[in-house]
């Protein structure tokens, strides 16, 4: 067996660059949306009004119990049932967001819960406004607890986005797979794809380390 990487270089722009850009778009958007959605859903789970609490509890359970693969099929093929036909990239974002939001809300919630209730009382007695309390006192502490698990979930979103390729969306894995079926050079193509994922993942870890450093917390390496 001899490796011939010319198949990779010849198709680099059409397949690998385009695929990487699409992967970054899908992953970036689903990370952002699932993090933003996690905040209201996480707070809803603490609601005093039980239907809201149960609704967000059920939402969290369902999104955590169903694999990303199934959500991707659902977003791409299943939503047609409701008359919604999504652009492939948007479908991938919807699928990955659904599979990520459940974990994100749980981690966000456990971060908030880790902040002692006495801190709110202390801020009140010092006359610090509620908004300021959340922004300057509660969030920095909650984020320290929540960031390592949140980032390991973002890592799962990055890796899970490869499943979108199976559903027929042209991101990195999808395009690599296509190129394999044209050229039948699986080893070279998959090796290069793996290296690209390693780089993307390293970027994610660098961001995490920078954030933990900003919060002045000893960095915990986790993937």
């Amino acid at each position, binding site marked *: 067996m001899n490796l011939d990487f010319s198949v990779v270089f010849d198709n680099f722009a059409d397949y690998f660059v385009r695929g990487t850009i699409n992967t970054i778009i899908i992953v970036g958007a689903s990370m952002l949306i699932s993090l933003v959605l996690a905040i209201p859903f996480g707070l809803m789970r603490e609601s005093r009004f039980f239907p809201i609490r149960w609704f967000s509890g059920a939402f969290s359970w369902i999104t955590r119990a*169903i694999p990303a693969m*199934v959500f991707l099929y659902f977003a791409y093929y*299943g939503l047609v049932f409701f*008359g919604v036909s999504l652009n492939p990239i948007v479908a991938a974002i919807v699928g990955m967001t659904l599979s990520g939001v459940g974990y994100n809300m749980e981690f966000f919630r456990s971060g908030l819960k880790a902040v002692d209730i006495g801190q709110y009382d202390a801020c009140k007695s010092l006359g610090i406004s509620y908004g300021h309390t959340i922004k300057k006192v509660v969030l920095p502490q909650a984020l320290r607890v929540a960031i390592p698990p949140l980032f390991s979930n973002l890592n799962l979103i990055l*890796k899970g986005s490869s*499943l979108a390729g199976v559903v027929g969306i042209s991101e990195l894995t999808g395009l690599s797979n296509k190129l394999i079926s044209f050229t039948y050079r699986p*080893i070279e193509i998959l090796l290069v794809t793996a290296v690209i994922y390693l780089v993307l993942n*390293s970027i994610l870890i660098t961001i995490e380390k920078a954030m933990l450093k900003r919060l002045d917390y000893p960095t915990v390496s986790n993937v």
Partner: protein
Amino acid sequence: MGHFEWNLILEYLPRFKEAVIITIGVFLAVLVITTVLGLLLAILYKVVFKKFWIGRRVIDLYSWIFRSIPELIVLLFCYLGLPKMGIGIAPIQAAILGFSITGTAYEFEIFSAGFEAIDSGQYLACRALGIPMTRTLTRIVFPQMLRVITPSYVTYATGASKRTSAASAIAVNEIMGMAKKIMTTTFRPFETIFIAMILYAAICSIFMILEVLANKKYGNYVRKVS
């Protein structure tokens, strides 16, 4: 909005019986293999390679690579790459091999975190008492490790049970693979995906309940420092 065909679900649900068995079978096989190999790697890393840094770096590299790249890439490599190298492999074997390679990296991290939690003084104490290494591990270290690793182990198993769905990409007829097949013959993706969702949610919920129980029992376990 389309019309929901309940009949289709009743008609096709029995066909998923075999698919459920394959999903659970692949998952259990992978779980057993990864647990054994992960524990072995952790013992190598923490006990045997204590003074052999090259060995430790090799394990670090393995763990970093396979926790960073998608499982699907590893599966595709086993399914398409190995036959190209002259190693014939059936889809289901490729799936078990691929999941085991990735899973071992995760289990290694879980077990080595467990070793971390054991005070090094305990090894010294065992040596002072003349207890051999194997017995130190089986009687002193493992029982304490169990309490530390159970929550993360169950969490890992929950995720792993879901991620078996990636095997459908390499022509394994597990739940999602079956759903794909039925989707292409019936043209009713919504109902078919609905069946797959229910089946996965049911399997995964078992582990999620175990996760809650494990966290209740061991979640607050803190090693007492004397």
